[in-house]
């Protein structure tokens, strides 16, 4: 802009965030070739990490950005796996089934949103849990599933174990990358600003022209789709489908854990939280009850000492933003990092941005 010296400019990224974008691309490229160097077990673990990142990012988008706190997101995880089983049973290629299943989850979430989004706050949160429990029971009625005995994605066995493992790894990596990119694009755009406005005050958002219901529905369906992808991928890695495993509320508990530890309402936080969860699981997962104790202890420590989560705290302390979705105004005559126009005893301008 030629008028840049006299009129304020809107900054969307910083030098750091541009470096971060390149780093992200490099990391994804390295991850793509990593199976060549990793053991079979490590490939499986990395696949699990990608699925955790998807779960955390989706729950964070829904609750951290959209204010829609749900404790029933396992319904979409379970349905993703269930529809994949069903589709594979009709003879569809098992890998194709995974993604068609996720699309069906998205489609199913649309009518569900019509009445669930009428509920507010706690009612919505618990209502989603009720929907998950109900769906679990309905899935149990399907003879193919054989109740809690469950069934398997048998058709995947036509591929040998090595091919299957790497294929699922790449699918998970690709899905994670694509879903994160979609979310980032959405949250960074004007719809993202509307989503955060609705979270902060729904009435005020409506009064300045935001389509509240439509925007919430878009986010709800996207989160359902993403978690459906995660559920289908989980099925692909574990082959067996037992309804009580997939429709277990623990999945949502994990999502909440990852997002709260990582930093709710920050794009980077969900990814970091998934990584922390993954490490705790890797180190303590074999210790049975102590694993659950350490998860619980971590959650308590974070809520006491770092209520904004890891990334929320880093952002506040150091003003570091790697994948920013917000906007900063730079007034003429001021350096980008410090506009100094808003002296505030407790915070510097850089720290003000939540998202």
């Amino acid at each position: 802009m030629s008028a840049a010296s006299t009129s304020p400019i809107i900054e969307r990224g910083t030098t750091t965030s541009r470096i971060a974008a390149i780093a992200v691309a490099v990391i994804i490229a390295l991850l793509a070739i990593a199976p060549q160097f990793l053991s079979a077990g490590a490939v499986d673990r990395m696949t699990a990490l990608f699925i955790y990142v998807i779960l955390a990012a989706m729950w964070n988008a829904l609750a951290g950005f959209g204010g829609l706190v749900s404790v029933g997101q396992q319904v979409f995880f379970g349905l993703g796996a269930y529809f994949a089983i069903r589709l594979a049973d009709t003879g569809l290629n098992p890998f194709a089934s995974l993604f068609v299943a996720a699309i069906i989850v998205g489609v199913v979430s649309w009518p569900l949103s019509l009445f669930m989004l009428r509920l507010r706050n706690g009612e919505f949160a618990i209502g989603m849990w009720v929907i998950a429990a109900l769906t679990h029971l309905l899935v149990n009625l399907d003879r193919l599933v054989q109740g809690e005995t469950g069934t398997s994605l048998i058709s995947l066995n036509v591929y040998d174990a090595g091919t299957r493992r790497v294929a699922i790894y790449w699918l998970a990596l690709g899905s994670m990358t694509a879903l994160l990119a979609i979310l980032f694009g959405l949250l960074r755009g004007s719809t993202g600003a509307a989503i955060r406005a609705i979270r902060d005050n729904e009435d005020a958002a409506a009064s300045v022209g935001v389509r509240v219901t439509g925007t919430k529905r878009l986010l709800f369906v996207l989160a359902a789709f993403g978690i459906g992808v995660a559920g289908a991928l989980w099925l692909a890695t574990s082959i067996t489908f037992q309804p009580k495993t997939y429709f277990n509320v623990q999945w949502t508990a994990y999502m909440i854990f990852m997002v709260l530890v990582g930093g709710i309402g920050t794009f980077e936080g969900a990814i970091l939280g998934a990584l922390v969860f993954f490490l705790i699981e890797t180190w303590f997962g074999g210790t049975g009850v102590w694993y659950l104790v350490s998860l619980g202890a971590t959650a308590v420590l974070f809520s006491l000492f770092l209520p904004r989560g890891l990334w929320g705290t880093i952002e506040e302390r150091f003003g570091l933003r790697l994948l920013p979705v917000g906007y900063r105004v730079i007034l003429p005559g001021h350096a980008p990092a410090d506009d100094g126009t808003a002296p505030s005893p407790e915070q510097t301008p850089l720290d003000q941005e939540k998202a």
Partner: protein
Amino acid sequence: MPHPQQQAVLTAAGIHKRFGALVVLDAVDFAMAADEAVGIVGPNGAGKTTLLSVLSGAFPPTAGTVSFKGGDVTSLPATQRCRLGLVRTHQVPKPFSGMTTFENVFVAASHGAGLGRDEAYEEALGSLKLCGMLGVANRRAETLGLLDRKRLELARALAARPTLLLLDEIGGGLTDGEAGELVGTIKELRRRKIGIVWIEHIVHILLQVAERLICMDAGKIIADGEPQAVMADPEVVRAYLGGGPK
């Protein structure tokens, strides 16, 4: 009543609003032209804010119709009315507290005024500048004090490019000096031909802008006309001083 020679842009006819057994608005008729500045006064509980909410679409009336720019908008929600140019501010500021001041205003420019990215930036910056808020553009709204929250309400509503702005006690809780600053901004809006409906208890600042004054009491309009005449109206005096039932 609107000036007879002018076309009414906003009309409310036979508005009733009941909350359970409580009648808050009782057969209110109101019309105004696009370039008018109308002040609304009245004792607490007169139904002023409820009328504003019915006009802005925050909730529907129990009976009656609201028309804006020649179309019936009674069943249109606030979102659509805002997009048509009928925008309100809130008595108790409702900032998007987790977003910055700029982002608050940008939402309105982008969704309310329906502008593309660059135009929305410009509109948002223009509104912030007009309301004297550029200096706090990067502050998270939850860190703003009352005056800045009031200004933010105004800046955000402006960024939606209103034809008609409904202000609900924008001066409430402010010092005279602070309220005076806001009046300056509102006078600038008048120069830009934005119509204004302004509810305010601080009558002397209201009268710096209002060319027409309405007084409400117990859900009815009891006086409507030239400000000085309305203030001198015996009914108005009785409503304010509590002259007991008529």
